């Protein structure tokens, strides 16, 4: 029983890490950027979903998802235009851009604290306290949504990057901005689109995560482990992000129980560092 619970628990938390990690990987793939604000974008998305549910009493859960994703996409556009565009135009290098995303994260989390308050909120929907029993193991009912939405998201992203003009343009621009420019792909467009999409994915993760726990301005901290997951599974690889999420989730759950729960965070990062030492570009990276 204990083993099954640990396994299910690790998979459950791993799926959350994986969802957030997909946002990281997506923005890395499209822009070559490590976005430290991704966890906070998830947080804002979760609050937007809360606002939808709190404003329209009895609104279905999918409406919260859609509303949060749309709202977050707009926010992503605003962030890109106000904070990001000037630095990209200046051809600022990676260190600047990473620090910039740190700043964006700080503004988002503290802005959210001022807007939604310092106390955590709980989604006013029955889903929050519903349980489904899977293989004799009780799970929060929202995992049904996660089980459906995650594969859909992965498929959609795959199609987007391989079939749509915008997706191909994003990839081309990330790989070779100069060549892309000669094909009429504007850098501004691609960076706006990347930000909007990554923020929307973050919001999706936030709304799906919210009923499991609660929503608070500092919940972006979960992004940090998601970040380890994305790195572990090779930044830029979207299936890698999901696999990395499961590895971190399972690793810290079993590791915490085996070694010491108070070192759980360390275990997560130790796993990441160990994997990266063995495979410097992550699990899905090319062998060198």
């Amino acid at each position, binding site marked *: 029983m204990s083993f099954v619970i640990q396994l299910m628990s690790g998979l459950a938390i791993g799926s959350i890490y994986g969802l957030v990690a997909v946002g990281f990987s997506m923005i890395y793939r499209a822009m070559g950027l490590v976005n430290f604000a991704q966890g906070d974008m998830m947080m804002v998305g979760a609050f937007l979903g809360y606002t939808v549910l709190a404003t329209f009493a009895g609104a279905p859960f999918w409406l919260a998802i859609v509303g949060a994703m749309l709202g977050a996409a707009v926010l992503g556009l605003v962030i890109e235009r106000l904070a990001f565009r000037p630095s990209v135009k200046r051809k600022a290098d*990676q*260190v600047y851009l990473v620090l910039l995303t740190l*700043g964006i994260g700080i503004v988002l989390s503290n*802005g959210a604290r001022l807007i939604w308050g310092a106390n955590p909120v709980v989604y006013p929907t029955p889903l929050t306290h519903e349980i489904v029993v899977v293989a004799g193991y009780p799970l929060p009912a929202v995992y049904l949504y996660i089980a459906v939405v995650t594969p859909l998201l992965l498929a959609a992203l795959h199609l987007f990057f391989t079939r749509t003009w915008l997706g191909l343009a994003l990839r081309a621009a990330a790989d070779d901005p100069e060549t892309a420019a000669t094909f009429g792909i504007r850098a501004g467009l691609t960076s706006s689109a990347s930000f909007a999409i990554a923020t929307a994915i973050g919001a999706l993760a936030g709304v799906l995560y919210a009923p499991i726990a609660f929503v608070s301005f500092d919940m972006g901290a979960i992004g940090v482990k998601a970040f380890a997951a994305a790195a572990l599974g090779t930044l830029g690889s979207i299936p890698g992000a999901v696999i990395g999420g499961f590895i971190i989730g399972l690793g810290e759950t079993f590791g915490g129980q085996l070694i010491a729960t*108070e070192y759980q965070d360390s275990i997560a990062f130790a796993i990441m560092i160990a994997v990266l030492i063995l495979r410097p570009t992550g699990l899905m990276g090319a062998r060198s």
Partner: protein
Amino acid sequence: MSRQEAQAKPMAQAKPLTQAKPLVGALPGPRSRGAARPAGRAWRPTETQRDWLVFALVMAVAWLLPVSLGGFALYLGLIVAFHAIAALGLQLMVGVAGQLSLGHAAFMGIGAYATVILEKRFGLSFPLACLGAVALTTAAGLLMAQLIRLNGVYFKIATFGFGVIVHQIIANWVSLTGGTAGITGVPPLTIAGYALRTRLDLFIAEMVALTLVYALLLRLSHGRIGRAFRALGQNETAARSVGIPTDAYRMIAITLGCAAAGLAGSFMPHVFRFISPESFTWHESVVLLIMITVGGLGSLPGAIVGAALLVVLPEYLRDFAQYKMLAYGVLLIASMALMPRGVAGLLADAARRLGRRAS
């Protein structure tokens, strides 16, 4: 030597070419006009001389302002000084050599705890304890530097993980560190039997360390070594392509940065008389990064100015404490977007304009 001689020849032969067709017609900007250097123009300091002039100015203010104001300003000086030491190290590592660390506060933590434990448990005097602490931090930095075999982005994430692990060890190794309760009653800093009880004494000790670190890093940032660090920071592949052993330089920059953090950490418990793991969180690492960014990435005096700003600023924002972190975030974004060279860059531009008007 022989290769240089071999090179001298083609150069001499090729020279006529350049007279035939100058490629650079009208170059924009004031720099090129200055470069023409018309005869009779007043003495212009070289880059190196200018840096030392700034050094003298910054150090004069840093020494004299807190001392002449005294009281709480002097206490703030104590806090600024050790932050400035840590920020200088971080500046070399991040601003100059481009090795972003997201766990720098953890190294301050190692230095702080090592110093206190060596003093309280082993009865060492401060110089020895400090030496031990710096040695330990250097070793930890060297350990982290081994991670440079990870590619750039992955290294940044790994430094974050390193910070988390160090923080958890400090918080959970209760028998050694006192755990989450921290260590109270830190004895006054004692050098050669003389206890530095007053603020002024402690300030002098810290400022001596700060001045030395600044001078050392300034020397190191000039000439061949400094150029190699900057080349590494600006384009690693290009640096490799001109024969700079980038791996070695990355490791050295990281280790030096961590050693400086350890030295800063050594003073911290003597300023506060108390340490606890709460002072060495990820949040503090971010504050250190904001210091060097607001001060101006890549600028050593900028690191000191940034440290001073971020320690003193909250005193003016007391009524807006709720908005403080928001303000920090906006400040960070604004420095990135509007003044990428930070306060140091603004001051340098102002000085240049002033100089031009004067001449």
